[in-house]
């Protein structure tokens, strides 16, 4: 069952393969993005429980507090808007009213006063994105008229593939990063071929080896005129401030020069007014902009993910780029504003496509936390001790991981490793097949640690999925790191860590069915597994408080996810029926993501608790100083028993915390 769904997952957001409902059909539950923007009166939507500590289940009014989950008319929402990040004042925004009528307009309100406003008008026939794109083009032409005397560097929109791109490869590119360019396109095409397999790993939708995203650029023959390209549900673009394409998720970025120029014009139009563009809504599409100095990142999506979530994805995409090039890339643009960055990213498509794929399965992308491989406390300690040993010998960070999960890690004194850096680093290593072949020593940048400088990473696989990363600031220390690796490997083999890692990968993580009936039971090593048999018997009695549907855990608990706020680590239960298809997993992922966004909405929250119910699930989110808990239940689950079960989950996690979390990571506290 897993392999089939893996194929689907490879096709995620591919409008091609799913005319009906696919992975993004999460959305009969209408989402309200304005919510994410704080434009909607939010109180109608959420229930807050002010109490700390344990949840109370006896609050009758709770049932009324069910949030408005479905706005029947939501989809028919004709009003699109562009939201602009204000400069100093509160009042600046761009709005696009896009009704049935033929006239839409962009409205920019300037910071200081109403007087200073510019209006661009353009027409739209419908909400279709393709049309939206035309509109933008037209708007752009408009803008050019308006600002003809100003510097808007764009190519003619009518010739998407002739961009004057090759001219951009100047010797100035050699300035800070490298020398003249080569011819990599053919090469990339060559490499993006087949020769990779796809299959699913166990646990949390992680992927083993390479899935279809690992082919590097997909559909590179597409361009903005292709129907298939227009139908993609989620596009990511990176372009330079002069409008040169840098990266496109779909299609060959070189062929998208015209489209890139369009996006550039929109950004600069707004910037010329002293504002920053954040979001354009066009029908059911959102266009999200993120401006990072000379680099613009854009996401065009009809997946109905919240604005904040998509913006976070753009931030990660940018940081992934910094991990490869460092922020000194900005200097290339200072020297030559038409600098062409694509040659510098040669061969990295696979890194970005794997990150974008992670946006639809890896909770670390929005929880900003990492997850650990479950291990006996003593096993993890053995690994930690030897890592600490090498960290004391001049290694900045020593990180031992198994796929996306941390086995142990250690940093030199005062060195702080951010969970986002870990996510991007492991994504980089996992998606680049060449690390598997041999020892390697490569420059990488940890953007949260220091965006300006390269560190040097010694990377070596110690098993099929287990790899060691030793980071240093000293480019001459390869042989020292190599010796460290040999020492570490010896210890890990001797203390059976590597074989336990393999076993843990097979066993998976926490399962909702194993939730102990009696939270006061003493726990021993890997208790959540060893007690499994016992629990099967207890299960009948333990569901007295709730409704046992025969699947999932007690009280209809289907899944949970827990983030420790002290540790910046999270743990998620294994997916089990009925959340076993890839689509169901992705739907739940998106539901959590949405819940997470609304819980952290600065304008409304922070909330302590939220309880949502729709035809798919009951979702419960509970945030305290200590943790964030997300849980999904059978839609028919009773609220009171759901809350009881959440308390039991928390107790359970406390009991087994030394096995599921890395507790001795305190020197890395960030």
């Amino acid at each position, binding site marked *: 069952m897993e392999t089939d769904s893996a194929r689907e997952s490879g096709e995620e957001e591919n409008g091609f393969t799913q005319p009906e409902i696919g992975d993004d059909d999460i959305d009969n539950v209408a989402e309200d993005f304005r919510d994410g923007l704080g434009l909607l009166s939010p109180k109608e939507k959420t229930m807050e429980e002010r109490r700390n500590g344990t949840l109370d289940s006896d609050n009758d009014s709770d049932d009324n507090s069910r949030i408005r989950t479905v706005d029947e008319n939501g989809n028919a929402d004709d009003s699109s808007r562009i939201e602009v990040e204000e400069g100093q004042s509160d009042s600046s925004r761009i709005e696009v009213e896009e009704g049935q009528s033929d006239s839409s307009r962009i409205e920019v309100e300037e910071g200081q006063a109403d007087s200073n406003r510019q209006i661009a008008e353009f027409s739209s026939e419908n909400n279709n994105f393709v049309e939206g794109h035309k509109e933008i083009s037209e708007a752009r032409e408009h803008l050019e008229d308006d600002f003809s005397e100003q510097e808007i560097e764009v190519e003619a929109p009518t010739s998407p593939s002739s961009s004057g791109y090759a001219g951009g490869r100047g010797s100035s590119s050699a300035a800070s990063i490298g020398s003249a360019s080569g011819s990599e396109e053919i090469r990339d095409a060559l*490499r993006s071929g087949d020769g990779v397999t796809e299959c699913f790993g166990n646990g949390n939708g992680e992927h083993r080896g390479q899935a279809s995203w690992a082919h590097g650029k997909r559909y590179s023959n597409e361009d903005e005129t292709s129907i298939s390209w227009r139908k993609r549900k989620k596009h990511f673009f990176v372009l330079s401030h002069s409008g040169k394409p840098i990266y496109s998720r779909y299609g060959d970025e070189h062929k998208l020069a015209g489209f890139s120029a369009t996006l550039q014009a929109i950004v600069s139009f707004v910037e010329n007014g002293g504002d920053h563009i954040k979001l354009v809504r066009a029908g059911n599409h959102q266009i999200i902009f993120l401006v990072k100095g000379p680099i613009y990142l854009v996401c065009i999506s009809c997946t109905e993910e919240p604005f904040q979530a998509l913006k976070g994805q753009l931030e990660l995409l940018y940081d992934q780029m910094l991990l490869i090039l460092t922020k000194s890339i900005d200097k290339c643009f200072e020297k030559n504003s038409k600098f062409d960055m694509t040659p*510098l990213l040669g*061969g990295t498509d696979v890194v970005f496509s794997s990150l974008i794929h992670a946006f639809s399965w890896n909770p670390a992308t929005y929880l900003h936390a990492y997850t650990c491989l479950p291990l006996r406390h003593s096993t993890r300690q053995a690994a930690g001790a030897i890592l600490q040993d090498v960290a004391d010998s001049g290694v900045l960070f020593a990180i031992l991981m198994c796929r996306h999960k941390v086995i142990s890690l250690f940093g030199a004194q005062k060195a702080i490793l951010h969970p986002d850096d870990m996510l991007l680093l492991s994504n980089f290593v996992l998606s680049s097949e060449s690390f598997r072949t041999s020892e390697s020593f490569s420059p990488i940048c940890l953007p949260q640690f220091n965006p300006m400088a390269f560190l040097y990473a010694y990377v070596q696989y110690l098993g099929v999925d287990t790899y060691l990363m030793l980071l240093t600031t000293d480019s001459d220390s390869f*042989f020292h790191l190599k010796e460290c690796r040999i020492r570490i490997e010896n210890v890990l083999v001797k203390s059976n860590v590597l074989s336990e890692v393999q076993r843990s990968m097979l066993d998976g993580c926490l399962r909702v069915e194993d939730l102990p009936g009696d939270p006061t039971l003493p726990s021993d090593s890997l208790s959540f597994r060893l007690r499994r048999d016992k629990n099967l018997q207890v299960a009948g009695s333990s569901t007295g408080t709730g409704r046992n549907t025969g699947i999932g855990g007690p009280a209809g608990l289907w899944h949970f996810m827990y983030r420790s706020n002290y540790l910046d680590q999270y743990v998620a239960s294994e997916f089990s029926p009925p959340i076993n298809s890839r689509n169901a997993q992705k739907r739940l992922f998106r539901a959590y993501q949405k819940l997470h966004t609304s819980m952290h909405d600065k304008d409304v929250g922070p909330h302590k608790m939220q309880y949502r119910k729709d035809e798919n699930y009951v979702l419960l989110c509970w945030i305290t100083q200590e943790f964030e808990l997300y849980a999904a239940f059978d839609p028919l689950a009773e609220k009171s028993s759901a809350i009881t079960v959440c308390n039991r989950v928390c107790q359970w996690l406390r009991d087994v915390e030394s096995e599921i979390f890395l507790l001795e990571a305190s020197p890395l506290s960030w």
Partner: protein
Amino acid sequence: MATVGNKNVQAKLVLLGDMGAGKSSLVLRFVKGQFFAYQESTIGAAFFSQTLAVNETSVKLEIWDTAGQERYHSLAPMYYRGAAAAIIVYDITNLDSFVRAKKWVQELQKQGNPNMVMALAGNKSDMIEKSKVSPEEAKVYAQENGLFFMETSAKTAQNVNELFYEIARRLPKAEPVQHPAGMVLADRSAERARSSSCCS
């Protein structure tokens, strides 16, 4: 650096060349006897070591397979610094890669160890029908610049062992005084004494 022990020589060898020229493929063919039609582009640099017997001497090659991607060019000195030997690889079906190879030779002549043993490898000789670089031209260029030249194929293994053995053979042996590279040996030990790290 070549280090002389009791008939044991240890030498750092670096492979340079355009991306896709086949550096990793040559090393993998030599070290592991493998070839992959879809060899992944190298990141940073990969390290291998291989010991071979040349006459009575055992030569341990510490091989740095560098990445040809443009973003790594400015970091290349980190890998070729202190190398006793270099193989500059180009793809015979790609003229640009030959141009690039010449640039690497120039850079090594300027920055590298003056006594470095250098080889020019015209790789993918199995695709001779698509060749864009004449072997004569490459040979003449190599001779003029003090390199030895071979056409190789990582795919068919043609000339791969020969290439690495020839490097090993040309490395300075137990007669440091007669061989100019003897100076370099001294450098290396001095470096070792200064610091325990010895990537250079």
